[in-house]
């Protein structure tokens, strides 16, 4: 894994030719160079388009590398900025139609509606996606970047900043939904001269790629959000803890930090004020548990990433035992927009206690896999069927898994539930960081529960007994069920064990590990019973052994 994927090597080459950079181009093609499209050689498309456009003598056309255009399923994607026309599955050898469309762009053109996938979304944290060059500070500034920071540093006190964040109703986008304003206030009021801001970019949930996309598509926004937070809580040093599995995100972050430092957006005397704040990157090393805040801190401190009991909370005693603010990528990415457009604007979006928007990664057996941002309170049906385009091959929808290994599977009956922190918990699932895995009738729910349990037992740090031993025992019981060796007693034992692991584990990993079992038992108990009593797998996924002596 030490090799950096080719797709992830930093792209240093600017394709825009110098002479046309002076005046605004007549037409612009956005080429998606986020990880998904890049792995389908979209960089070659950028290069090829540049060559073809130059050959065709189109001097007033710009070919621009941008971050994620969202509809990853149809990549590589190219969009004509002026008309909004989207080209899907483009190859470097067939860029002709794109060039023709660029040549046709007229001054009077307006962006046409792009269909429900785009129109039903509301972009806040991802507002610059597919618009800015993720490696260009100028581009970010041009689109309103660092305006919020300027306002904060020149016109506001730290108390006012915290009040605005509190008023916006923003809650932590990493999973549990702790009110962001309250967390900031706790850190600001904590005793201590040295304080830290940490951005949690250890996006470990399988099936979630929101944070990766934000870092790859709009890294400056995260830096701006962190700087604002640092001002609000009186911190001078920041860390971004990013997964090593995301080399492109790391490369773009490094480049963004360097450029921001040079331009005076990071370092001492930020934007000609006396405020100082700097950011360093720390790489994760393949441990899911490091998404837990105390484990993450241990990892930054160079130790084994094992969580410790709280209290004390990191807000009081965190990194190097100093007060520490930890928020996730999406939370920080939402902050600049909130402070630019005002907290009331943000609080008006969403429903109940879940304000604003949420980014989801749609994946699994859904047509439009990709990254979407929607107002809180949109129903699962709208997200999966209107935006997601329904199930592949028109198969029947069976369940959607949210919240990763601590989450649950929600069946078709509840598709009309508005998505909020509270409603998902009520359904036995969890908001989590925003992964949404759609499943059809080819998935066996017991097998899915076993998959997540396998994940948890593998990622358990081994510190506390219930998680270390209990997750393995639950996996063994699930394995018995899926191989047709189980009895009704095993099912009762599974439920008993799940309850105890949930209640007694030290950290969120163990406490959340039984959730996939609970939720599949709640909605798909008949599938469990079919495996146990009839020794068959309704979805045809599990290999059931012939009825034989039950040995153990």
């Amino acid at each position, binding site marked *: *894994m*030490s*090799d*950096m*994927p*080719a*797709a*992830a090597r930093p792209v240093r080459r600017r394709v825009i030719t110098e002479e046309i950079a002076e005046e605004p181009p007549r037409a612009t093609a956005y080429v998606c160079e986020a*990880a*998904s499209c*890049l*792995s*389908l050689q979209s960089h070659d498309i950028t290069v090829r388009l540049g060559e073809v456009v130059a050959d065709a003598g189109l001097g007033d056309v710009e070919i621009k590398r941008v971050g994620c255009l969202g509809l*990853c*399923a149809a*990549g590589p994607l190219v969009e004509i900025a002026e008309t909004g026309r989207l080209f899907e599955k483009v190859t470097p050898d067939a860029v002709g139609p794109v060039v023709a469309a660029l040549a046709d762009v007229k001054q009077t053109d307006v962006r046409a509606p792009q269909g429900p996938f785009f129109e039903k979304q509301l972009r806040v944290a991802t507002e610059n996606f597919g618009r800015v060059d993720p490696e260009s500070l100028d581009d970010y500034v041009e689109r309103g970047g660092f305006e919020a920071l300027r306002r904060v540093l020149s016109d506001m006190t730290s108390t006012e900043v915290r009040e605005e964040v509190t008023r916006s109703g923003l809650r932590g986008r990493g999973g549990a939904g702790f009110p962001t304003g309250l967390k900031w206030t706790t850190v600001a009021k904590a005793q201590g001269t040295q304080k830290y801001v940490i951005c949690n970019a250890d996006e*470990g*949930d*399988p*099936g*979630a*790629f929101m944070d*990766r996309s934000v870092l790859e598509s709009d890294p400056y926004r995260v830096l701006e959000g962190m700087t604002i937070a640092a001002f609000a809580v009186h911190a001078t040093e920041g860390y971004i803890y990013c997964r*090593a*599995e*995301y080399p492109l995100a790391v490369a773009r972050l490094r480049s963004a930090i360097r450029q921001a430092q040079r331009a005076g957006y990071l370092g001492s005397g930020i934007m000609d004020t006396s405020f100082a704040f700097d950011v360093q990157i*720390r*790489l*994760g*090393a*393949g*441990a*899911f548990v490091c998404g837990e805040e105390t484990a993450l801190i241990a*990892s*930054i*401190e*160079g*130790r*084994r*990433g094992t969580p410790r009991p709280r209290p004390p909370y990191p807000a009081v005693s965190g990194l*190097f035992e100093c007060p520490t603010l930890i928020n996730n990528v999406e939370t920080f990415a939402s902050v600049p927009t909130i402070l630019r457009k005002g907290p009331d604007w943000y609080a008006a979006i969403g429903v109940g206690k879940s304000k604003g928007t949420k980014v989801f*990664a749609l*994946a*699994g*057996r859904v047509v439009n*896999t*990709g990254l979407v941002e929607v107002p809180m309170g949109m129903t699962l049906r709208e997200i999966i069927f209107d935006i997601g385009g329904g199930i592949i091959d028109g198969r029947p929808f069976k369940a959607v*898994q949210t919240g*990763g290994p601590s989450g649950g599977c929600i069946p078709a009956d509840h598709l009309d539930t508005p998505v909020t922190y509270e409603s998902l918990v009520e359904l036995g699932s969890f908001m989590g960081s925003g*992964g949404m*895995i759609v*499943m059809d009738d*080819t*998935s066996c729910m017991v097998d*899915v529960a076993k*998959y*997540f349990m396998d*994940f948890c037992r593998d*990622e358990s*740090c081994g510190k506390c007994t219930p998680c270390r031993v209990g997750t393995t025992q639950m996996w063994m019981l699930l394995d018995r069920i899926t191989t047709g060796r189980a009895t009704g007693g095993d099912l009762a034992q599974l439920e008993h064990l799940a309850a105890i692991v949930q209640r007694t584990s030290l950290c969120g990993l163990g406490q959340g590990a039984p959730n996939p079992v609970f939720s599949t038992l709640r909605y798909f108990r008949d599938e469990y019973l079919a495996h146990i009593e009839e020794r068959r797998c309704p979805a045809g996924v599990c290999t059931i052994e012939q009825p034989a002596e039950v040995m153990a």
Partner: protein
Amino acid sequence: MPIRYARPSAPSDDKRWKIVETRMRRLGDRPYALIEALHAAQEAFGYLDDDALHFVGDTLGVPHSRVYGVATFYSFFTLKPQGEHTCVVCTGTACYINGAKEILAGLERSLGVTPKETTADGKVSLLTARCLGACSLAPAVIVDGDVQGKVRAADLVARLEAM
């Protein structure tokens, strides 16, 4: 305070140790630089051998047992040299429900190794990843650093066998 030892010298005059030394020095040679230092050593040498672990531990004043504890805790670190080629199969949820299990089984059969192992001829190392974040491309694998999306088991096996 940990006892400060005399700064140890690099295990050999291999230039790559300079990279590791620089990365540690930039963080003040403090114990908290341990994971960064291990990253640097693994980037430089491809894996972490005893020399690297000793050198990093001694430079940062971290007990050897702790260095080893950290190096074995994180799945990204490897203490064995990798094969000529690497194939990383994503086992994230989206890949799982789209057939990652079959791909892995196919590779295990044809290469005769289980994940985290290298074939006897040292050609291919088979690895798994928790989630590459390439869920739209599920099932995804990384072959020698290149992400491949919507992989079919047979094609992949054929490609690896040709290597």
